[in-house]
């Protein structure tokens, strides 16, 4: 960039043209633009396009089947062969399912579990990442190793001891079974969040933090006035992913929350699907639709952050 201002106009133009051409060519992929100008190339391109369009039915088909299935009457839903287009749509199924499944209660529980998870995870991970990135105490590498090692240990392999642990915490002998804290606390140990935030904090220039220190800011002020306000994008990614993960979470809340008044929507739906639950099948399907709407909405709203986050999480486990 600096070169442009110093250089002569002609050189500047050349630089500009080179930059433009390199940008245009970086857009290209395996198939060359020339091939697409060819009639045969165009035919093949549109054939592949239609093939892809057709294969989206694999994902949209089951979703359509679910949204539409919830409209069927309890007779039509068990019909053989099934109807692809509901003959007598019963929109009241959604309303009935909402009431019978006590969805307001379970939606509230799911929201509380998600909100608690976000608050706790952001607090714990951000403060730890800040200490590791900017305060750098003695023994930092040991602590860091202790955190990041856990990235390699999937939580299910210590599912059973974790359950025993939660039922009778060491030293204080408290049971977290049937309390939301029993879900929140184990999930707050997220080495992955610490890793993301730490790498982000590392990009905040030390000049900035040094200047604030010289102005007399203490560690807490540095954290709340400089680091956190600058870390919006990273905190957003973590928040969205924590909300989605908490919404989808099944096995751990199933084990910890056996009291139905405390359960999140996903666990309640699992219990309602049981043979003893006596719930009409079309209402269960309507319940599934309600459970899928929030994450789909979140995806539509925060697509960019989610795609960025997937690329981060995918490579980091």
């Amino acid at each position, binding site marked *: 960039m600096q070169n442009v201002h110093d250089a002569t106009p002609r050189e500047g133009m050349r630089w500009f043209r080179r930059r433009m051409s390199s940008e245009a060519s970086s857009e290209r992929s395996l198939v060359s633009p020339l091939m697409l100008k060819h009639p045969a190339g165009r035919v093949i391109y549109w054939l592949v396009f239609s093939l892809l369009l057709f294969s989206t039915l694999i994902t949209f088909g089951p979703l359509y089947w679910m949204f539409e299935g919830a409209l069927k009457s309890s007779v039509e839903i068990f019909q053989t062969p099934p109807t692809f287009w509901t003959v007598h749509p019963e929109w009241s199924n959604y309303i009935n399912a909402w009431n019978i499944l006590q969805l307001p209660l379970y939606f509230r529980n799911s929201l509380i579990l998600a909100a608690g998870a976000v608050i706790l995870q952001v607090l714990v991970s951000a403060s730890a990442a800040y200490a590791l990135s900017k305060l750098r105490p003695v023994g930092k590498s040991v602590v860091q190793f202790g955190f990041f090692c856990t990235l390699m240990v999937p939580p299910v392999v210590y*599912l059973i001891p974790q359950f025993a642990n939660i039922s009778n915490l060491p030293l204080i002998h408290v049971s977290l079974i049937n309390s939301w804290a029993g879900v929140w606390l184990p999930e707050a*140990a997220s080495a992955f969040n610490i890793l993301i935030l730490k790498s982000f904090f590392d990009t905040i220039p030390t000049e900035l933090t040094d200047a604030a220190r010289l102005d007399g800011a203490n560690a807490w002020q540095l954290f709340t006035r400089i680091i956190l306000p600058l870390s919006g994008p990273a905190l957003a990614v973590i928040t969205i992913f924590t909300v989605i993960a908490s919404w989808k979470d099944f096995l751990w809340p199933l084990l910890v929350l056996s009291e139905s008044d405390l359960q999140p929507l996903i666990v309640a739906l699992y219990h309602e699907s049981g043979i003893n639950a006596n719930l009409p099948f079309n209402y269960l399907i309507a319940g599934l639709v309600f459970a899928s709407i929030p994450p789909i909405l979140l995806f539509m709203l925060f697509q960019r952050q989610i795609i960025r986050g*997937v690329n981060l999480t995918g490579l980091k486990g």
Partner: protein
Amino acid sequence: MRLSSSFLSLSRTSGTTQRGSDLRSSQQKPLSAQDNRVKNGGSASPRESRVWRQTGLSLQRNLSAYLFLLPALVIFALFVWYPVVLGFIMSFQSVDMINPAVWVGWANYRHVFSDPLFGIAWRNTLAFTGYALLFGYMMPILLALLVNEMRHGKGFFRLAFYLPVMLPPIVTVFLWRWIYDPDSGLLNALLSLLHLPDGLWLENPGTALPALVIVATWSAAGSTMLIYLAALQGVPAMLYEAAEIDGANLWGRLWHVTLPTIRPIMLLLLVLQIIATMQVFIEPFTITGGGPQNATTSVLLLIYNYAFQSADFGEASALGVMLFLVLAVFALIYMRMTSRLMQGD
């Protein structure tokens, strides 16, 4: 080096600012560069240590740093490090969660080994992993390759294929259990529409496991595809042009340019997929319950059954330790691969 070029492209494609790419490139350095500084006397750099001397004592800095670390240290100690150790301890104890635990030596391991389900569960889990590689490993690569060539509707395709990932797993499994239903399910209806033979997909021991693999693939392929898409957009255009000048046709370019460039990510995702599919639980747990004739009992399902059906937490822990050791092998491979990649091959 190759990986970092794809890193840069990730931020470009997802429309983020420069900060996004800083975030990823800086992931590569933390363990090496800064730790050396810590060893060299506890402070980051000469300049910074001067700042610290001016503003406060080093003791005070360490104190406040550990105050900030305290919540994470307590949470990790209580809910990760301790349970991992406890798992090893419990595997040598008889634990039913009512009576106090009794030390039993290797008895749990002997019981688990002599359980006929032990071999079945491992075989099913390995078969699940194998099928998942067969169905699910190449598909995201193929999808990403095709979507990346599209000049129209790229965003739409990305959304369409990613959508199942957003569904809660419970929704996915119940939906597919219904789709597989022999009488009122979508699958048999479609097959009879095409005059193909229908089947008892979940009731037949031969097809139950592959049926579950399809569910798992359906719900996970989208996120892998996104990662490959980002990697493909990081392939330098220059390489394609150079290959063209050398007379390489489409296959030549695919074979000698595209695939070698994304190979590191293909390897990483291979290991990650193995680690993930070895933990298969929710599909057999909710769709088949491990049946028919134990054809879908996975290791994790067996652990769950030991603990919550027979209240034998010791045996469950013993099997958990075995799963842990197997996964640890793959985790170590993964770690070695990433560290080699991060150092620029």
